[in-house]
């Protein structure tokens, strides 16, 4: 198991920073070989996008002003980041200590998801320099859902940064700062969970004004509730998948004694996801019955809807349940992947596929839009890996040199956060 190097051991901040910036591990890995050209190409496309305008690299039009960058990066990416508020709620509010070992990685994942995916919102704005307007008060637009979403994104990113900041303080060896930041964690978590519930549903509320444009099988006044509930199991599935990959990739970062408890964690997360999916499925069924949509099922759209609802919600839900009962990690992981595919499909259905479904001309993302999305995902993984390899994210809470001089109860409290 590798350990953290502190500033004092490195002989000063700058030499510490230099040592941390050096690459660690092999450079020619399959991920690096694939992701570096994607990132470089994506950056080139972004230069064209910001100098020549959106039309030069995207297939967006007056009929489809929001495309793949909003539908996948923002709407889907934020749902995937739901694991952060779910796990912090479980650990800090419900005191489910069992999940403590994954809090740091989950918060980091959520923070990066918001920075990269929600940050991708700026790419899709025709006048990106106006992104600051809702924040500085230049046309606040109190009645707009986008006003709520923009403020919530900003505040939630700050909340997640605060939640993660004790790790950074630990990495820098700043004992006093860590103690202060750790003391703020509970308040920040309460604030963050509240914001999350509101903006996860807020993203759904954005589509309430598009009633005539969204296919009736996907449109409902309850879209905000659907977005909120589905973000719970999307986030939990993402934590299962991300945790599984991290366990494989960052094996040396994790205490070998903790490997066996990972199975219990995954089973607990799968149980939560199964219950959330069960509730979500019945919500959708109830709305379906209420709106009397039987006849809509007799078309291609109906088959597409059933694929999403039965194939990628109900079946993974039962797979999670079966996996929990039989303690089968393979089935749980497969269910997590199917669930994530279902979330992608649901968000893309609402934002792109079933949007303007009656128009003869359809929107398909250009190759540049897909490359930029792959760039955003690759860049997030690069930053995640950089942080995990340097900061005590998966490792046990790092004991700072002067921790032993602290009052024991304070030191214990700080180490638990």
């Amino acid at each position, binding site marked *: 198991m590798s350990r953290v190097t502190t500033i004092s051991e490195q002989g000063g901040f700058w030499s510490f920073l230099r040592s941390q910036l050096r690459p660690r591990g092999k450079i020619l890995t399959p991920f690096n070989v694939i992701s570096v050209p994607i990132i470089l190409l994506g950056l080139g496309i972004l230069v064209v996008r910001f100098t020549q305008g959106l039309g030069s690299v995207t297939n967006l039009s007056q009929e489809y002003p929001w495309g793949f960058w909003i539908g996948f990066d923002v709407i889907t990416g934020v749902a995937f980041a739901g694991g952060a508020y779910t796990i912090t709620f479980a650990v800090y509010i419900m005191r489910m200590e069992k999940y403590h070992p994954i809090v740091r990685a989950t918060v980091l994942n959520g923070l990066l998801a918001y920075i990269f995916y929600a940050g991708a919102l700026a790419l899709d704005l025709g006048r990106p320099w106006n992104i600051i307007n809702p924040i500085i008060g230049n046309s606040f637009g109190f009645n707009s859902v986008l006003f709520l979403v923009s403020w919530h994104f900003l505040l939630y990113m700050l909340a997640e940064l605060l939640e993660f900041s004790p790790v950074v303080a630990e990495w820098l060896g700043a004992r006093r700062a860590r103690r202060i930041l750790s003391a703020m964690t509970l308040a920040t978590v309460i604030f963050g969970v509240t914001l999350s519930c509101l903006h996860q549903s807020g993203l759904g509320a954005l589509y309430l004004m598009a009633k005539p444009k969204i296919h009736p099988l996907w449109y409902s006044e309850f879209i905000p509730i659907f977005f909120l509930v589905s973000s719970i199991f999307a986030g939990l599935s993402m934590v299962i998948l991300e945790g599984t990959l991290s366990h494989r990739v960052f094996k040396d970062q994790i205490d070998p004694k903790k490997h066996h408890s990972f199975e*219990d964690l995954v*089973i*607990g997360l799968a*149980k939560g996801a*199964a*219950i959330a999916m*069960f*509730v979500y499925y*019945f919500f959708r*069924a*109830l709305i379906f*019955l*209420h709106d*009397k949509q039987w006849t809509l099922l007799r078309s291609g759209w109906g088959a597409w809807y059933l694929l999403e609802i039965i194939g990628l919600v109900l079946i993974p839900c039962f797979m999670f*349940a079966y996996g*929990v*009962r*039989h*303690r089968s990690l393979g089935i749980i992981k497969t269910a997590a992947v199917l669930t994530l595919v279902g979330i992608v499909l649901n968000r893309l259905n609402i934002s792109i596929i079933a949007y303007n479904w009656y128009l003869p001309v359809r929107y398909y993302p250009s190759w540049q839009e897909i490359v930029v999305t792959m760039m955003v995902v690759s860049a997030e993984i690069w930053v995640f890996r950089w942080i995990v390899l340097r900061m005590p994210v998966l490792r046990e809470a790092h004991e700072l040199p002067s921790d032993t001089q602290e009052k024991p109860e304070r030191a214990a409290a700080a180490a638990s956060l």
Partner: protein
Amino acid sequence: METYTYVNIFETKGLEYLLLMSFLVLLVLFVRYLREPGGKD
């Protein structure tokens, strides 16, 4: 004036009530299934 028969399960929202009640029963059974000793957790 719109008319409907009280025995029509579609017009009286009877189906919605049935679904809601079956959901509550099934949810209890589902959670119990997840807590069975086989699942230990």
